[in-house]
């Protein structure tokens, strides 16, 4: 293996450019051997290096009073008071999930969970954001079924509740499903662990699963687009073992308590390579490892294969010299393999031995901080010049809007997500106070008076039709969901899913989305503490919508502030906060009824949104709000319907009268931002109105909750009507139909 001659073909197969190869030769002062070439190829892959996105990511606000650790570590860490910190991150596993949906999604969960407990935190919640092609195509149904079972299979076994998330369907995700997994953990503020190797001479310990040939070059696979040969990449997808991960989780948390763990990092993408050089790089040290000591699953593995394997459920630790036996014994107690494979050195190199043979010696920093960085060409896409040409008034008004409404609540996009979340154990650990289905999940923290609210949001279509505005909306909506649940947004993580960065139009959208997110994060004072970028989400030249996903976390200060989306009692007043503008561009209504994806996405005014959230929060804290539900895709009609369907009373209905100052279909299905529907006790209206006026937020009474019937009028005409329990049953089981 050592003697493999590095040819042009080999360099190309490793996804390295000629320029990048030259740089490697310069750094090393010689030609690399094949192992070294492999190491560079994974570390300089888009997936590991962020070489196309780094210059943009720097623009995002990452600092704040509450931030203990921003981007650059395994996960972000945020102070929530009471000497506790939350550790959270979102990560994509898109490419593997397309090739092998079950294992791809499962190992996505496994990876993000390791990132969290590696930092010393006990993982307490999972969420996921999913995108699939239309369910009218069987292939997409199969992918979705596999992905959901994969997430369930892994997360349920670990005993971490999967408390929420979101799913969208669009043609652009056919062949490019997105699987973004979020995990949140809780730790003592003063015992956070980092992926740093320090203390020259400290032993490096390998724990967990044995190293096999699976997943070699996974990171490189995730850094290229798919073609008709993608099926052949199946062996590149790793196979997960959640049981082993559960043992690893418990054993690591026990090991941390000894106080002897100096640094720790999981072996995710690029396995042993990435964990060893990153730990050295962050600690400003070197690491020497001997591959003869690495526990192997198969015989005859070469150094190249060992270094590049992505076998799951493995960790690398550095511990205090002399304490290795105590640490190893803890892992043994949990029936896990653990052994010393090397030590921390002072030369800033990654040194890889195979017994007495030197197989690689590379400066750490050249693999991490000093990897190539690109400012890729950008170009505004041509289609964006045409979107504003769209005049919605030219569209005819459909004859039967009730039919449109019925179709909507029974479509995959708007029906209940019950089919998904009932497959996830969302109650284990007995902290889930607000179950899936509401605007945000709310968890208690045993022993603390506060609660955590969390939500995932991102609308690719909005970003496609106005990237910057779409970026703002992703942040604004995730904050709105937190506030609707009674919380104050604290900090966020993001997962940026895009097509090829080598396409200047994709890069332009990327840059715009980041800019939008930056503005919104600054407005809501929610720093981004980490996340992940996934490029090359395209198959045979067809890319996905630019899809940023925001994972927002907030704090609910008091139990009585917890608010849910479902109406509570018959006869409550239904109040709309915010202004109806009847925006129909890029809406679901336009797509469902007219089969068109056109027009600018609804524009958001961040100041207006800020005021809305401020007003709503004050109303909740003052105790006036019985239910609150954010108005998003599908407009007012869907918001009202969901608040009925999510009620604990099966026959909860509404009688609503909307003004006729807008076209009826635009009024019902327009997707204007910065709107929330709340229900209150009628007697509280004056006080609620007073708060709205103070914040300069438009407020209107639009109706009352009733028993049994769902009725919505615009002007004098009753457009939407039906038996609410019947509609609820349709909505509740619509998704099941696709999986029978």
């Amino acid at each position, binding site marked *: 293996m050592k003697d493999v001659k590095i040819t042009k073909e080999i360099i190309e197969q490793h996804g390295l450019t000629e320029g990048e190869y030259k740089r490697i030769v310069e750094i090393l002062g010689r030609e690399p051997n094949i192992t070294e070439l492999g190491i560079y190829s994974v570390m300089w892959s888009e997936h590991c290096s962020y070489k196309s996105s780094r210059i943009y990511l720097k623009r995002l606000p990452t600092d704040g009073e509450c931030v203990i650790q921003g981007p650059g570590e395994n996960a972000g860490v945020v102070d929530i008071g009471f000497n506790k910190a939350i550790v959270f991150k979102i990560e994509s596993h898109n490419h593997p999930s397309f090739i092998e949906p079950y294992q791809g999604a499962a190992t996505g969960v496994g990876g993000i969970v390791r990132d969290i407990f590696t930092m010393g935190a006990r993982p307490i919640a999972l969420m996921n954001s999913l995108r699939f092609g239309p369910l009218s195509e069987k292939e997409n149904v199969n992918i979705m079924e596999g992905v959901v*079972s994969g997430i*369930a*299979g892994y997360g*349920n*076994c*670990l*005993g971490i509740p999967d408390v929420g998330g979101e799913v969208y369907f669009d043609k652009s995700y056919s062949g490019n499903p997105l699987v973004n997994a979020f995990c949140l953990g809780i730790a003592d503020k003063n015992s956070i662990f980092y992926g740093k190797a320090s203390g020259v001479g400290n032993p490096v310990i390998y724990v967990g699963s044995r190293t096999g040939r699976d997943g070699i070059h996974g990171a490189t696979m995730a850094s290229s687009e798919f073609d008709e040969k993608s099926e052949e990449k199946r062996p590149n997808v790793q196979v997960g*073992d*959640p*049981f*082993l991960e*559960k*043992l690893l989780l418990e054993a690591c948390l026990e090991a941390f308590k000894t106080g002897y763990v100096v640094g720790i990092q999981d072996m995710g993408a690029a396995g042993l390579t990435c964990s060893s050089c990153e730990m050295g790089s962050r600690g400003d040290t070197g690491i020497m490892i001997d591959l003869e000591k690495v526990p192997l699953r198969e015989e005859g593995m070469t150094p190249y294969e060992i270094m590049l394997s992505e076998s799951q459920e493995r960790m690398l630790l550095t511990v205090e010299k002399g304490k290795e036996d105590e640490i190893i014994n803890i892992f043994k107690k*949990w*029936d896990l393999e653990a052994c010393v494979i090397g030590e921390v050195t002072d030369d800033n190199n990654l040194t890889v031995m195979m017994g007495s043979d030197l197989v690689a010696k590379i400066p750490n920093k050249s693999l991490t901080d000093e990897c190539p960085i690109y400012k890729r060409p950008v170009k505004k896409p041509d289609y964006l010049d045409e979107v504003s040409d769209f005049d919605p008034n030219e569209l005819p008004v459909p004859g039967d809007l009730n039919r449109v409404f019925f179709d909507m609540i029974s479509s995959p996009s708007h029906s209940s997500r019950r089919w998904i*979340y*009932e*497959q*996830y*154990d*969302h*109650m*284990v*650990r*007995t902290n*889930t*106070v607000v*179950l899936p289905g509401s605007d945000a999940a709310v968890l*208690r923290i*045993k022993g603390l008076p506060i609660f955590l609210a969390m939500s995932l949001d991102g609308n690719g279509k909005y970003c496609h039709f106005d990237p910057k505005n779409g970026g703002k909306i992703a942040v604004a909506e995730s904050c709105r969901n937190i506030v609707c649940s009674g919380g104050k947004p604290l900090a966020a993580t993001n997962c940026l899913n895009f097509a090829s960065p080598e396409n200047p139009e994709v890069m332009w959208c990327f840059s715009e989305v980041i800019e939008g997110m930056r503005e919104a994060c600054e407005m809501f004072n929610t720093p981004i503490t980490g996340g992940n970028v996934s490029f090359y989400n395209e198959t045979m030249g067809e890319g996905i919508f630019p899809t940023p996903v925001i994972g927002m976390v907030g704090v609910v200060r008091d*139990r009585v502030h917890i608010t849910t989306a479902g109406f509570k009692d018959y006869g409550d007043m239904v109040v709309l906060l915010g202004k109806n503008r009847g925006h129909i561009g890029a809406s679901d209504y336009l797509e469902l009824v007219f089969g068109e994806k056109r027009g600018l996405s609804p524009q958001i005014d961040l100041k207006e949104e800020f005021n809305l959230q401020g007003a709503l929060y004050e109303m909740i804290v003052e105790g006036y709000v019985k239910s609150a539900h954010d108005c998003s895709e599908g407009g007012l009609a869907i918001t009202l319907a969901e608040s009925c369907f999510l009620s604990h009373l099966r026959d909860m209905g509404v009688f609503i009268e909307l003004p006729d100052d807008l076209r009826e279909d635009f009024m019902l299905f327009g997707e204007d931002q910065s709107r929330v529907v709340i229900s209150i006790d009628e007697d509280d209206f004056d006080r609620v109105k007073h708060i709205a006026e103070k914040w300069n937020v438009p407020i209107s009474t639009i109706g009352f909750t009733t028993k049994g019937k769902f009725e919505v009028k615009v002007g004098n005409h009753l457009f939407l009507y039906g038996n609410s329990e019947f509609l609820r049953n349709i909505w509740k089981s619509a998704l099941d139909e696709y999986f029978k």
Partner: protein
Amino acid sequence: MIKCGVVIFPGSNCDHDAYHVSKHVMDFETVFLWHKDEDLKGCDFIIIPGGFSYGDYLRCGAIASFSPIMKSIKKFAMDGGIVIGICNGFQILLESSLLPGALIKNKNLKFICKFVDIRVEKQDTPFTNSCTKKVLRIPIAHHDGCYYLEQSELDELEKNGQVLFRYSTPDGEITEEANPNGSLNNIAGITNREGNVLGMMPHPERASELILGSFDGKMIFNSVYNFLKKKGNN
């Protein structure tokens, strides 16, 4: 004071939940029992919690039934000790032959997590003497919860009054729609013939505090408390 032991197998994941309810909600003296140990530490009451012991490899609960701690628990149960196996714990009790029958894959072949209603079939037991409601609302979360037993043995089980909980409508009707997993006779929980060992699929520890949407599950722990207290006084 009542002393409760919560068993930890590799892969148990409702161990902390059971511990929390026992210690902080019920105020029992509570200890964890490690699967490799044989010592029950003088507990009056044993909970075998849910989870995926040994990853559910081979068969759910199969490997756990051979552990050192189960040897002691079998003896404890034979001597009349109170044991509850919840979810995977129920599976372990079946595999250990402390209870009859088997749990096979749910009829829809998927994991199901949701609140269900279960009807209390008998009230004069260590587990139900304080149930003030006929129907309890308690969540399930399992992939293999379809209770199965040969017809003749099933008849025997019914005749002996060993069926303690059945999936029902909120009004207590036993219907097919109310049966989430296809269990024979809508069975959600059974006891051994002597009545001191309970296995159930629903998770009472997840429904023991108002903030979690239901505290019906607490009635089961209250019943155990009352039973043990009376026993202690005698």
